[in-house]
């Protein structure tokens, strides 16, 4: 059988889909190297958003009239697209949230509150984004459970040999791990950790906010019990995200937010809950955003997640090579083959704010800060780093501009 090589992604061509690149920043073309914080939007997604408002806008699951039915159909079609995107068995397990943060808080509260107590242990990692750290730390403290973190090594990779020690210390009930670290780009061995978590009888929470934009997610093999994503990081609009959870777990949980739509029957003495997923979707949801989220899924799927992953991978390797030539640059994180399109670095003697500020004048947008991962920064012994992150519209030339900009930073500040 002939094997046809998959066509590679043409980033230069895809850039034309993104209206944001049509303008100049400080008189220069925009080199947007901060996609890990939020991605830019293709015209296709923007059109879906506007089109919904112009042709289908009504409240979902409320009216008996044509418009409401049409809005509901589009909203539910988007839910099914998200289901397909993560290869979940059923759309009723897909709950629309505001973002990944809300999805993770939903798990911490609605699962944690009823299932954690003294003698139980909650495990996160030192790499986690605050969104996958603080809610679980908080709920552990409130319920009297112990809170632990899987440590990382000097290259920012999880030290799995620490797992047995953690298991010996207490009754592990919940394990929360990010699939890809937003700070270092580390791709974590989530399948392995999930298998371990299940051996302990724990539920496995996977923060896929940073992974979903960049690689195919398959819930049939990942080993997750809960998974959180945000549309805005994957070419979708801000204001919507999703939680996927195993139906049996979601069924057994109390709701998180209360109000309209999530109820079955309200009586003075007692209220009963709506079926999944509506039990967890109180109030008017982000409807147009959810529909455009579905369009973003279509857009990414048409390009192909494998092609996106490979493209980013090449860019990360190229950036690490170019930065590696400069002895006044320190890069953090694992080797290129075990990281996504994210490169964190510092310029010797120069604070990241100053680096980012000077680069801004060159039209280059990078992130400077702690990347919502202060425990990780403490471990690396820095307050902050610079971070350049790439996406399907990033081209090599932008990395060359970054390197040239860093030379200018050196010139001005040292």
């Amino acid at each position, binding site marked *: 059988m002939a094997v046809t090589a998959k066509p590679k992604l043409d980033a230069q061509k895809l850039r034309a889909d993104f209206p944001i690149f049509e303008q100049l920043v400080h008189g220069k073309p925009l080199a947007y190297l901060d996609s890990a914080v939020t991605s830019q939007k293709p015209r296709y997604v923007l059109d879906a958003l506007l089109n919904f408002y112009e042709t289908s806008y009504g409240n979902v699951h409320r009216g008996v009239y044509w418009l409401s039915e049409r809005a509901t159909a589009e909203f539910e079609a988007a839910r099914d697209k998200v289901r397909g995107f993560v290869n979940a068995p059923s759309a009723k397990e897909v709950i629309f949230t505001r973002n990944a943060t809300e999805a993770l808080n939903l798990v911490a509260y609605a699962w944690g509150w009823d299932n954690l107590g003294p003698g139980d242990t909650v495990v996160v990692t030192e790499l986690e984004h605050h969104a996958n750290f603080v809610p679980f730390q908080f709920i552990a403290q409130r319920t009297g459970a112990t809170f632990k973190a899987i440590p990382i090594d000097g290259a920012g990779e999880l030290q799995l040999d620490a797992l047995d020690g953690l298991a010996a210390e207490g009754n592990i009930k919940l394990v929360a791990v990010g699939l890809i670290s937003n700070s270092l780009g580390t791709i974590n061995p989530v399948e392995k950790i999930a298998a371990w978590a299940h051996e302990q009888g724990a539920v496995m929470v996977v923060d896929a906010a940073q992974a979903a934009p960049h690689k195919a997610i398959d819930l049939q093999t990942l080993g997750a019990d809960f998974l959180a994503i945000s549309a805005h990081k994957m070419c979708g609009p801000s204001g919507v995200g999703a939680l996927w959870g195993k139906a049996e777990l979601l069924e057994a949980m109390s709701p998180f937010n209360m109000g309209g739509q999530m109820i079955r029957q309200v009586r003075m003495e007692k209220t009963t809950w709506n079926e999944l997923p509506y039990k967890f979707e109180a109030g008017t949801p982000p409807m147009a955003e959810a529909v455009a989220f579905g369009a973003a899924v279509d857009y990414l799927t048409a390009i192909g997640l494998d092609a996106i992953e490979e493209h980013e991978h090449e860019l990360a390797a190229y950036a690490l090579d170019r930065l590696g030539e400069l002895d006044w640059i320190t890069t953090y994180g694992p080797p290129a083959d075990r990281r996504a399109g994210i490169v964190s670095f510092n310029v010797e003697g120069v*604070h*990241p*704010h*100053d680096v980012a*500020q*000077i680069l801004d*004048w060159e039209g280059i947008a990078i992130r*400077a*800060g*702690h990347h919502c991962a*202060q425990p990780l*920064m403490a471990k690396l012994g820095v*307050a*902050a780093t610079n971070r350049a992150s790439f996406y399907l519209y990033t081209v090599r030339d932008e990395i060359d501009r970054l390197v040239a900009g860093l030379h200018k930073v050196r010139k*001005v*500040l040292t």
Partner: protein
Amino acid sequence: MSEFDQLYREVILDHYKNPRGHGVIEGADAEADGQNPLCGDEVSIYVSFGEDDTIEDVKFSGRGCAISQASTSMLMEMVKGRSAHEVATMSKDDLLEEVGIPLTPIRLKCALLGLWTLKVALHKGKGTPLPEEAAGLDDLSLN
């Protein structure tokens, strides 16, 4: 001058590269720590008082960007020898005028971290009033 050249103008770079009042006062009469939650930067301010309530010596340590280091360095020069009560009511504009560059709201936080932290130190040492902006610094909670 372009906005860029203004932001990193000579005097800012001079204070950044040769900060005045950088260091620690052992056995200071008052000290306070401030953090910028945005970037994780930290500054510690140390004050020793002379007669009455004059600021006899003042120093800072910590880490930060050029803007925060330079403006805190300028602040040290501005307040040394002045009365704690006077400095406690000093407006942020006095410092910003000295810094003399256009700042976005985010960079404003960098530029003013030293000032708010100094005001917390003065409050701890001399009971001077605290500005709203000091809330959260030095684990202080204001109502």
